[in-house]
């Protein structure tokens, strides 16, 4: 191996190594578990305090809110399990009864606390699910 290639190899190793360590660390910090409501609510104790992206459907007529403060309380269901969620802030256009939502936040014994801006409703896309087309 010539001096040049070994030098190049060494710098690639150092830069690459540093980046991967940083990457691994920040992935651990910023990553969230993507879970369905029933997966979490079968063993809620195990999930208290963990960062979660919770997937489910808003139960019909479960949304209650205080307009002045934008406080929302609603129930999310997936499979046979439900969880009560609370959120303060602006909800996206698609948030409504029966909507498929992904909530980012933490589970507490009192229910799921959604982080600010943590409500995402399935974005209406051009490529809507095929069940619609087959109707």
């Amino acid at each position, binding site marked *: 191996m010539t001096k040049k290639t070994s030098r190049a190899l060494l710098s690639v190793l150092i830069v690459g190594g540093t980046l991967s360590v940083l990457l691994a660390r920040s*992935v651990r910090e910023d990553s969230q578990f*993507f879970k369905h409501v029933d997966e979490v609510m079968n063993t809620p104790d195990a999930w208290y305090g963990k960062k979660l992206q919770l997937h489910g459907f808003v139960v019909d007529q479960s949304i209650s809110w205080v307009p002045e403060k934008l406080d929302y309380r609603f129930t999310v269901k997936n499979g046979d399990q439900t969880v009560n969620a609370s959120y303060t802030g602006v909800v*996206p256009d698609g948030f409504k009864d029966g909507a498929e939502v992904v909530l*980012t936040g933490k589970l507490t014994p009192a229910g799921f606390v959604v982080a600010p801006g943590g409500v995402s409703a399935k*974005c209406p*896309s*051009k490529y809507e699910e095929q069940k619609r*087309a087959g109707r």
Partner: protein
Amino acid sequence: MANLGTFLILAAFVTASGAFAACLAGARTRRPSLVQGGIGLFHVITALLLVASSVIVHAFVIGDYRIKYVQHYSNEEQPLFYKLASYWGGLDGSLLFWATLLAVFGSIAVYVNRDRYRTLVPYVAATIAVVQMFFLFLLVIHRNPFETFLTTAPATGEGLNPLLQNFYMAIHPPLLYLGFVGMTIPFAFGIAALATGQLDDSWLKAVRRWTMVAWLFLTVGLALGALWAYEELGWGGYWGWDPVENAGLLPWFTGTAFLHSVMVQERRGMLKIWNVSLVITTFFLTIFGTFMTRSGVVQSMHAFGEDRELALMFTGFMILLLTVSFGLVIYRLPLLRSRNELDSIASREAAFLANNWILLFSAFLILFATMFPTLSEAVTGERLTVATPFFNKWMTPVGLALLFLTGVGPLLAWRKSSLENLRTQFLWPVLAALVFTGGTWALGVPLWGSAICFGLCAMVATTVAQEFIRGASVRQRTTGTDLFTALVGLFARSRRRYAGYIVHLGIVLIFLGFAGNGLERDEQVGMVPGQQLSLPPYTVKFKALTVTRDARKQMITAELDVLRDGKLLTSMYPARWYFDGRENEPTTEVALRRGFSGDLYLVLAAFDVEKQMATIEARINPLINWIWFGVGIMVIGTGIALLPERALSFATARVPEHAVTTTLLLFLIVSIGSTRLRAQHIVTPESAIIGAPRSDLEREIHKEIICMCGTCGRKLVGECTCATAAAMRNEIAALTANGKTRAEIIDYFVKKYGSQEVLGAPIDKGFNRLAWLFPYAVGAAGMILAAAMAFRWSRRRDEDRAEDRGDAGIEGGTPTMAARDLEARLDDELRDLD
């Protein structure tokens, strides 16, 4: 008709396989007639697909709801514009659209290069035909847009999603597709070069322009998508790192890397393997992005739905793609050996290399993070996701590093920069960077992210300015023309280089917008009429909540007065619209007040009609418009780089010495004229006071009739501030005073203007925006005219130019040492570049 469409797709598939076989066989056995036939077939694909496209467009226009695809994405009420846009509104149609674009691009590329790259062209055609076959295969067996209902067809369609009935959303996908599809051509040339072994720099020449065109479309497509998100979705941002957005960004990164590294190969014969690999990777990423977003592999907020079969087909194609392309690269490794080695770290090559690594790193970081949920599920069984904070955390330093290199790269000399050279080149840019970083930091701007970004922006801008000034002054001295002519002359001599600097300026502006991101503020307040919220320097006063409806939707609108320093600035109307038949999918209509320093962004977040209560989210997005403006500058820069060789040659001709300056001045005057035309509403929104309507009927009509002055983008007569609108309001007042009913008044206006054009309702926002484009169209027409004139000038003076070149150096007197040095460097660099 549907049967015809299905047949055309089938025929196109068969033709594509024929074209592939004939081209490949003809090229390998060196039988020109076979190649000729293959290329003929290749053009036939284009013809067939164009007919297929027109069949489906026709079905949309006449509303042939027997076809499932048409039924799903269109309906009677939809304006024609969106009926057309529905063509690429769904998966099946977008695949057909893709195939059609690819065919058209392929035909153009093959036709244009038929003589110059005689040996490459058959392989280019064969490669494109294979890609074509893949998409047609998908259409034939899995996703036929011409599929009809087997039982009775519904009488009308479901209509395009209201959120997508937006001007940007209608033109953003085709532009993005143009970018994606355009990247196929460089790939085809790369494969052709690898297959024939003609790996000198000639294939790069053919590819450079195509890559630039595709890159341009991709850039504009991405920007329009961001603009749509910003204006339509109402969350105040423009980029959410959603898998779908990321899919568009990935090839943009590698494409940008290629556009830079290609210069290193042209200049120094290095990075050959790298360049071929970049072309392949870019194409691969366009396919991969399509795969990622269409097959449901990645959980996206956009409900794409899972499609395992499609995922499988894409996977197969991608494996084939990678095996064949990189197999060829490995096979040709001996021919791809570099002519030179890196001499010094302080060289332009090194800067380009660093830029390439960072761009590639960005692409793979985003790819990794986007695929992370899928990857983690495969490895650990747990679906873990990374969200926006992760992307922002990583992309901020990466973006800043790229910006830094944008400033540094052009200052370094090829091969090796001397210390003296470094000192003269870096003095001003570094000084500017330090002053701006320190200055903005002292003003209270957060250092990390924003202040550093401002500093680096200043650095790049100074670099670009320095390059222009030094280049132009040397040129001015040697040719003895005026400064403008010298500047244009620079472009004529080295179009790509200086056009590239303009693109860099655009990047600077975009980064200014990004830096503004760190300074945004927002406020959410629930109010009843009379209450207000304060978001310095604005005060937003809530006046009323109204419920109105037109032919297609019900509208809940909040009327808000915006005050600044106690003075009424404007009235704004954020709203929510409930389209008929889609009442449970309301759309947020953002009210925006644009400005150079930032936007005031108002959203009707929640409301209660009975209590007349509304929750308003007010947000100030500083500097955000510079992003769109920067993209505009990038488009202009790329446009200049794409101009044909002779377009600017008039500036190198000596005879029309001041003609350039005169032309520019004329052009400036014309463009100022058109700006004023357009700016009637931007500059003086407070100038005309809109009289309060005296009755409910008047108020109602104010919201139904639009201003007919022709320059204000079809604003509602009740919101418009121009004189025509005032006159129209007076008319309405007079008519209501005479006891006319609503229908009579509307009838009066329809008769008066001869069409329903005067009604606000049937005309959708899309056309409204087209009207705004008009001045730009006039501007563009003027520019073309000016270019045509200049072209004529230069043609007539061709003979003179030849002698001009000969004595240019002597005429300039005795340039100083530094200038001569720079001129030498300039010449040295310019010679090979173009």
